[in-house]
């Protein structure tokens, strides 16, 4: 019997798990995918929003601003990339100018610091590749970029270091209460807990139904992206938004923390929650949209495209409430959910406490986590040192990102380490570069098989069913 069970290991579930791990509690996180951050958290814009966007008085506004302030500290503690690059909302006409004025005022009400409206000249001096017909912009210096899945993995690892258990590849099928205990039926057997957190992302409405909470629905909305080669990663240094109109929020262009560039997302309502395919129309739309803001985007420089799915609640705001005694919903966490998650976590824990969960601080809580330092990021002395101990750091496996065998092995051996080709890619970037694994994938498969002591045919790209090899040759 666990004190608390958390359903879902996205950024919300892992933030909550880490928060809970500060206390003397037994906690389990149940995740249906084979890895952390395989839902919305793996495919989104990765922007820490400043907080001028969300309507005053909403949970979105409150946790966005709070989260944005907490982000840098948490990324430092957990040794993951965070870059305060600032963001611009571009105006191309008078309507847009009026609108960024509203955003500016909203930002002030929400408590966003360092906001400024700037004119065309200033925009172009900050970002020379913006289209010349820009007339002004809202400049938010506190806007930042992060790597969402690396952060979620880091939160999970740190929670795990502090005693939280993770059940991966385990789907929650049914939840009910017997007396004061939650009986959680999963694909791998029954789990029991005294408290429950629903952080099941796109499927949080189903879990809420099982718990008998006040009904809400989650509407999946697709957002498509194109990712560009590092060679053009410097086209802009800030995150470039367009002024939202009644037609939509516009397409953004942004560098990533690792120096690539992306354009996206569009917004298309869907009837399925698990369809992460991209479409020709969608990719064309985001490319066109990106070129509205920025000069010099060439489709030839695209290295991959992907889709993320927003968990849009029909209530219009995050659903953070109590569906049944001793349970908390952290549901409908759409954008700016990545930003908000780190502030939602302590709030969810306080809701559990209000319902009777006793929180006793652990004395030996480990607040920091050290990331695998990639060979390529080491100093010359560090490189020599690590090479003298482990020759595997002398073998480059991913030629695009210069990732060594030592890096990959360490990603596999870490707590909650990589178990699939995608898992390696998300932890140490092998296969993330311009050849997208064309060269290193077979080598990564071999290393995974060796380290996990499984046959090559058992190595997966990602989840169950994503096998790479079908058998031996004749």
């Amino acid at each position: 019997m666990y004190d608390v069970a958390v359903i879902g290991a996205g950024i919300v579930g892992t933030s909550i798990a880490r928060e809970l791990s500060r206390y003397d509690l037994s906690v389990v996180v149940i995740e249906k995918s084979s890895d952390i951050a395989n839902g919305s958290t793996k495919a989104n814009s990765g922007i820490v929003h400043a907080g001028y966007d969300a309507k005053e008085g909403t949970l979105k506004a409150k946790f966005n601003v709070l989260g944005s302030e907490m982000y840098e500290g948490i990324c430092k503690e957990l040794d993951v990339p965070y870059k305060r690059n600032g963001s611009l909302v571009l105006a191309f006409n008078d309507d847009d100018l009026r609108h960024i004025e509203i955003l500016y005022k909203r930002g002030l009400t929400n408590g966003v610091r360092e906001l400024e409206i700037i004119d065309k000249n200033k925009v172009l001096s900050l970002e020379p590749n913006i289209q010349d017909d820009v007339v002004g912009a809202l400049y938010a210096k506190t806007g930042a970029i992060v790597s969402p899945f690396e952060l979620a993995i880091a939160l999970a690892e740190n929670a795990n270091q502090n005693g939280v258990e993770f059940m991966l590849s385990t789907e929650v099928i049914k939840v009910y209460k017997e007396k004061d205990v939650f009986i959680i039926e999963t694909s791998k057997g029954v789990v029991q807990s005294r408290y429950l957190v629903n952080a099941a992302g796109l499927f949080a409405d189903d879990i809420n139904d099982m718990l008998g909470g006040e009904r809400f629905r989650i509407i999946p909305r697709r957002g498509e992206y194109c990712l560009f080669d590092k060679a053009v990663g410097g086209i802009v240094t800030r995150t470039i938004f367009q002024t939202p109109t009644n037609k939509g929020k516009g397409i953004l262009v942004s560098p990533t923390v690792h120096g690539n560039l992306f354009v996206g997302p569009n917004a298309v309502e869907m009837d399925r929650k698990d369809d992460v395919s991209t479409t020709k129309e969608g990719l064309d739309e985001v490319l066109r949209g990106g070129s509205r803001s920025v000069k010099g985007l060439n489709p030839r420089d695209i290295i991959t495209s992907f889709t993320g799915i927003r968990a849009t609640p029909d209530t219009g705001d995050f659903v953070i409430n109590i569906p049944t005694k001793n349970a908390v919903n952290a549901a409908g966490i759409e954008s700016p959910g990545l930003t908000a998650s780190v502030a939602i976590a302590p709030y969810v824990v306080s809701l559990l406490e209000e319902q009777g969960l006793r929180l006793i601080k652990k004395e030996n809580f480990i607040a920091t986590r050290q990331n695998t330092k990639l060979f390529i990021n080491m100093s010359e002395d560090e490189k020599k040192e690590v090479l003298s101990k482990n020759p595997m750091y002398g073998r480059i496996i991913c030629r695009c990102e210069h990732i060594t065998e030592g890096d990959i092995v360490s990603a596999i051996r870490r707590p909650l380490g990589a178990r699939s080709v995608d898992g390696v890619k998300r932890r140490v970037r092998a296969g993330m570069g311009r050849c997208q694994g064309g060269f290193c994938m077979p080598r990564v498969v071999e290393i995974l098989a060796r380290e996990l002591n499984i046959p090559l045919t058992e190595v997966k790209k990602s989840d169950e069913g994503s096998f790479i090899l079908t058998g031996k040759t004749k």
Partner: protein
Amino acid sequence: MKRDLVIIGGGPAGLAAAIEAKKNGIDDILILERDKRLGGILQQCIHNGFGLHIFKEQLTGPEYAQRFIDEVERLGIEYKLDTMVLHLSENKHITALNPKDGIIEIDAKAVILAMGCRERTRGALNIPGSRPAGVFTAGAAQRFVNMEGYMVGKKVVILGSGDIGLIMARRMTLEGAEVKMVVELMPYSNGLKRNIVQCLEDFDIPLLFNHTVIKIHGRERVEGVTIAAVDENRRPIEGTEQYVECDTLLLSVGLIPENELSREANIKINPVTSGAYVNELMETSVDGIFACGNVVHVHDLVDYVTEESYLAGYGAAKYIKGEYFKDETGFNTKAGFGIRYVVPNRINPKNVKDRVNFYMRVNDVYHNVDLVVKDGDRIVYKARRNHVSPGEMENVKLSKEVLEKVEGSELVFALEEVAK
């Protein structure tokens, strides 16, 4: 460490260059190869068809490579395996890495780039759809099948009719997979004619020209692809979509010379070939850095790689010995009508030993044309070609004598229709 000549890449290009440099009096040579053995891409090409021109024999890839490896051993040329070159600077400083020596820093008098090329991937095509397992470049699949002994799928669609794709169509069929079709965007194949016959026609595998894959289906593993016909602008034609069930999509959609290091060293790259501009001795725009093989332009026959690389090795030797004329004498080569590119790009006849072999590709399929080389209005060379295709490299040999007589600033290579 200081070395006279460092060769980056131990494929057929690097090996031939090393051998020739050694034969021309350079003793201090080091080959750096990131793989665990020499031989380059040839090591995974276990089919026949190598060496017809050079050895007048049908060899497999590894057999062809072995002849050069043996020669390198016999001549006592030093090489390091499992060694990846990470950086190259304009003044020929090289940083490499391997498990045994760790970080290796070398200052070279001359460098020969022989890094070969890499395959274009799905991202470069931006094919919409899901991103399941089961999408491979043909070369990655070839590595799994030929070197590791594992199959990558059972029902296969191949996009692109490049040679690797064609060869894999046959190989997968022989291994018991069902190769449903090869889909080619263009109205012609970039592969060698003999490969189309021996790898597809002999196995009744259909080759669909003017078609492409417009969507990939399947959540965890490929379940199928949607293909469609394309118009003259290579855009899918609505209404021609067709779903093809398969568990594997192999991509054979072209090779790109691997020039990350060249760019870092500020070497000028030809946007048409994606390889360096080179002169009569295969020297790039940077003094003392030479290049040969697939890193300069993609070859379909290794024999030509070998020839070109002998020249680079000879050039580097001349350079190191200070017997290399660096003056403004000479002329540029230019691709005229029907020709996509010509290599080399600049010729100083003083440095030419006996002759220069000019390699080129045409930009479309033509029948019954003359391949003409002109110095102004003067015809320097003319030869009849019954059939030319972008998939098969053309070459023209011009002697030193002929080259010395060129008066203009440009030598133009072009196709001319034969007057009826």
